[in-house]
């Protein structure tokens, strides 16, 4: 139940964020500093999410097949693969690692 409440809270906040761009006067939201901070935060959050999903196991660091997925996805991106293919390549690399008996 709490999960649903936070889920709906996240949805409400997401919509209000989008709507604020249409309602708040441009001199408040349009400040170059704010645009810059929001851009930097997007990059930082995504980098952190990559890292956390690759090496975190609860509060411990773990080295397992997910690192194979990271490497395979990096190669796919360097070869200019489209997003969906990158995701599939990542899944295949991790699944193959597990099939080979890696954690």
């Amino acid at each position: 139940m709490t999960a649903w409440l936070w889920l709906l809270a996240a949805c409400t906040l997401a919509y209000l964020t989008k709507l604020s761009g249409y309602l708040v006067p441009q001199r408040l939201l349009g400040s170059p500093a704010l645009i810059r901070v929001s851009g930097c935060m997007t990059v930082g959050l995504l980098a952190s999410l990559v890292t956390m999903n690759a090496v975190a196991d609860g509060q411990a660091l773990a080295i397992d097949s997910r690192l194979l997925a990271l490497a395979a996805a990096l190669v796919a991106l360097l070869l200019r693969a489209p997003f969906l293919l990158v995701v599939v390549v990542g899944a295949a690399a991790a699944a193959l690692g597990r099939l080979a008996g890696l954690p």
Partner: protein
Amino acid sequence: MHVRELLRTSPATRAGLSIALATGAYGVSFGALGTASGLGVLEVCALSLLLFSGGSQFAFIGVLAGGGSPASAAGASTLLGLRNGVYGMQVNTLLRPRGWRRLAAAQVTIDESTAIALGQTDRTEQRRGFWTAGVGVFGLWNLMTLVGALAGDALGDPRRWGLDGAAVAAFLGLLWPRLRGREPGAIAAVCAVVTVLAIPLVPPGIPILVAAAVAALVGWWGRDRSPEEVAA
């Protein structure tokens, strides 16, 4: 205007439609990863319908999959969605929607629809591009989320299918196009290191918020530089 006529004469409608097909298709990966993270099919579909912002949705389930609390999942998703406020402002200056159209425009203000609108010079084309991409992605993304969630639910142990690896790849795929220029690369590297250092020290889900704070500080300190370098 007839649909076929519109497709022939309007480059923005064509661009909007192709981005809708490409982006909508990977809703299937969100659906599958969503159920793998422990959410039910209904919850996963609610995220696509109501939250509707790819990065934020992936962040929400990514934090849950890492053992984080729903509260920190909501925190990460909200921070990642802040850029949509900037997008809303940019789209508003181009299209100036009024009444119910403004409320609808806000919901479909995402990376793709904004990029298509900003890429047009003609006012009519901007409007066509924004709405085609926005509504098109919305429809397909939700449909494919349902397909992925049902499939993911049927797959059983997500690790056996490498779905945890798919999540890593998905986040790298979302980050990749933003790594143009030296500064975004440096911010990404610093935030990755901060995350690794924070994982053993704070509860799951919190390292992401720490990294966000570090990135915000970097942005604030260098605010005299051109904003377009990282926001674009």
